[in-house]
């Protein structure tokens, strides 16, 4: 029934849009309640009362909040991201290269983490109750429970300090050759991959187990199907929706992990940019970086929901 699929999808996308507006309002509100005068801060030594007043008018700082919000939103949508307070450079220029770095990091992590996690999750469900499954479960609980910086510091301790295989910091400027790149990327990627894999393994295993506990899986067993066949032909097609959902949700954890990892390894990505901006109270930069994060997060979650919707076989 084409119409109902289309209408469900449209509804979901509209909800996403509405959420984006609410979220941007919250970000704007949170960053605008700043004690202290922005104009004073910017003028620094030259902050005479007239100068401050003039700058405030020039920056439209005395307009009502909703007007400022609207102007900011419009600016974002049309590509005008404003100017950083700290170093007067246009934000778009600051962000551009670093956003690319962060995406590279996330991309490489996903490339490694997803296949490994899916395999482990599915096999753990297939051999439910065996020692293999128990080991996987305990390890994943362990990794999920600990903070990302613990995984990172442990990795540094092991590979950089004791074994001396990898450098502790990553200088991702002019990376020559594959070997160099591997050494630089290895630990940040490993840390991130560990964290999101653990989530994915748990959720994948749960999805497959749920599909295995159904009457139709029992029916397949009663027809003489081997366990492998029951999992691959009967459980997986039905668990696919929840599994993709799990992958999308786990990838959204990258957004949190990347903040820690870029800080520890001094990786020049957009998360580190934002953390530094917080230290210098550089409002426009914080706002823009926050919006980028929220947008990516929202895209991932909406995609996950849409896939869950579409994978319902009753819609055929």
């Amino acid at each position, binding site marked *: 029934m084409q119409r109902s699929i289309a209408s469900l999808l449209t509804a979901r996308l509209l909800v996403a849009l509405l959420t984006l507006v609410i979220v941007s309002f919250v970000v704007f509100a949170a960053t605008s309640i700043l004690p202290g005068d922005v104009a004073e801060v910017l003028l620094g030594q030259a902050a005479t009362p007239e100068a401050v007043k003039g700058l405030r008018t020039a920056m439209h700082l005395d307009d009502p909040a909703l007007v400022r919000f609207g102007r900011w939103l419009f600016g974002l949508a049309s590509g005008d991201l404003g100017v950083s307070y700290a170093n007067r450079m246009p934000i778009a220029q600051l962000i551009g290269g670093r956003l690319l770095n962060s995406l590279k990091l996330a991309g490489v992590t996903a490339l490694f983490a997803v296949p490994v996690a899916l395999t482990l999750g599915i096999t753990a469900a297939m051999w439910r109750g065996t020692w293999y499954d128990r080991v996987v479960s305990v390890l994943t609980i362990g990794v999920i429970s600990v903070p990302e910086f613990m995984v990172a510091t442990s990795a540094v301790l092991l590979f950089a300090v004791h074994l001396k295989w990898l450098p502790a910091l990553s200088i991702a400027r002019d990376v020559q050759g594959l070997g160099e790149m591997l050494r630089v990327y290895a630990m940040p990627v490993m840390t991130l991959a560990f964290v999101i894999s653990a989530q994915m393994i748990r959720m994948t295993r749960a999805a497959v187990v749920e599909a295995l506990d159904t009457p139709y899986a029992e*029916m397949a067993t009663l027809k003489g199907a*081997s366990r492998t066949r029951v999992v691959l032909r009967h459980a997986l097609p039905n668990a696919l929706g929840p599994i993709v959902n799990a992958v999308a949700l786990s990838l959204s954890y990258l957004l949190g992990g990347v903040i820690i990892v870029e800080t520890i390894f001094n990786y020049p990505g957009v998360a580190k940019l934002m953390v530094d901006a917080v230290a210098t109270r550089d409002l426009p930069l914080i706002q823009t970086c926050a919006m980028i994060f929220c947008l990516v997060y929202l895209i991932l979650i909406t995609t996950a929901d849409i896939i869950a919707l579409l994978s319902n076989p009753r819609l055929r």
Partner: protein
Amino acid sequence: MTAPLVEIRDLKVDATTDAGRRIEIIKGVSFDVAEGEIVALIGESGSGKTTIALTLLGYARAGARISGGEVWLAGKNMAARSERERAVERGARVAYVPQSAAAAFNPAHTIMDQVIEVTRIHKLMPPEAARAKAIELFRALSLPAPPLIGDRYPHQVSGGQLQRLSAAMALIGDPKLVIFDEPTTALDVTTQIEVLRAFKAAMRQAGAAGVYVSHDLAVVAQIADRIVVLKDGRVQEIGDTRQILDAPKHPYTRELLDAFRPRARAAAAASARAAPVLAVESLSAGYGPPRADGTPSILIVKDVSFVIEPGRNLGVIGESGCGKSTLARAVAGLIRASGRMLLDGKPLAQHAAERSMQDLREIQMVFQSADTALNPAKSIRDILARPLEFYFALRGAALEARVDRLLDMIRLPRGLKHRRPTELSGGQKQRVNLARALAAEPKLILCDEITSALDSVVAAAIIELLKELQSELSLSYLFISHDLNTVRAICDEVAVMYAGEKVEQTTPEQVGAPGGHPYARLLMSSVPRLDPDWLDTLERDPALVEAFSKR
């Protein structure tokens, strides 16, 4: 003498409870099945019939395992073989027809893929031959559009059709033994007939033996050659079908037969008072926003009128989807309805939120599933005490005394007060349900399929209780059910519903009589009788079947 196909010797199965204790659920069962013979396993829930049937496949559900005895199938002991060896037999030598075909089909694959899967697993024949054979089976099972139905997905096909498709799925491997696990329990009586006929014909043609699990004696009488009666994991009696039905030897078998034919109610005298307890005029109920005339846009109940006099009972019967439960909910005020209702001659507001405390008290409702009708976090005493506190502001000793009296009224020991609902049996829970309704001292009790989820013996006891309470307390009942026998036992008048309308209202003996509404006639003729020849000699008017049954 040829050896029997199936020999079960002293089978024992135990299970692990939630707490970790092992208890024996099958306690030494033995019986045989000859080639081509159909044997029925009869018993109430908890008797172990499904568990025994599954052991023939070498299978036990989670938590259970075969702990002793032998299960010989064509010379192989399924109880002792490894999982892989068992898998070789499943589907090829012994096949399973599930209780709920709708759940047993994988929603992600087409029907044909699943029906011929057995041939793929056991490499019995190439796919084209399998497909052709499947279509032949579809034809033999009287399914519509045999060449095309396999291309559909399970959710696109009706329940009765799915049940027959699962039989095709079982027969495609040419098994020597077919296990039927209560396959018609979830179907309406009018659909059940077609499915039973199809099964019988297919089994005759294939010459396979069968084990038919059920709790319904009348259904089993139509299809089984011999019957094994089970209770609490033990065999009570084994015999030919006719012998069991005409001359049962074991007292438990006699109990089962008695429960099948409950005593009819002595007609209650019409009361001297004029005003009926409940008068309903043109009641329409449903969902969705109201139209201009106040009726909801999606109607489930259409323009129903009836009257219940004090001390008398009205039964409402019909198949699933006819609107009888919705009718009860509309009378209770749980959903929006249009039309007029008079309680004791005074107008009754449609929605419960608008009714006075008095009106709410005088109409009480008892639900079908006692599991969801009693709060599992409360003790029995608390459940019964609340209406007493709420309606009558009883406290302290007076409250406790009244709770005790209620327990006496429903014939339960007073010590049960401190238990939780999860510790009670189905019949006990339903009695507590009733007591909660009685606590409000109502005039009318709406019984919504209250015995449908109970075993026949327990249900019969509940009906007796209802009758006693009625004479003690001058109550009236509106009794909703799909089972005419139960309704006959307790009601003075019966209304038949179809597609939201009341099509007929007469005395219980007159329902389905030749002069009445065609649907009522079809319904009554579809109810199985305790006569083995009933199905074979049944003739239903094809025009009626076409018009009314959902095949």
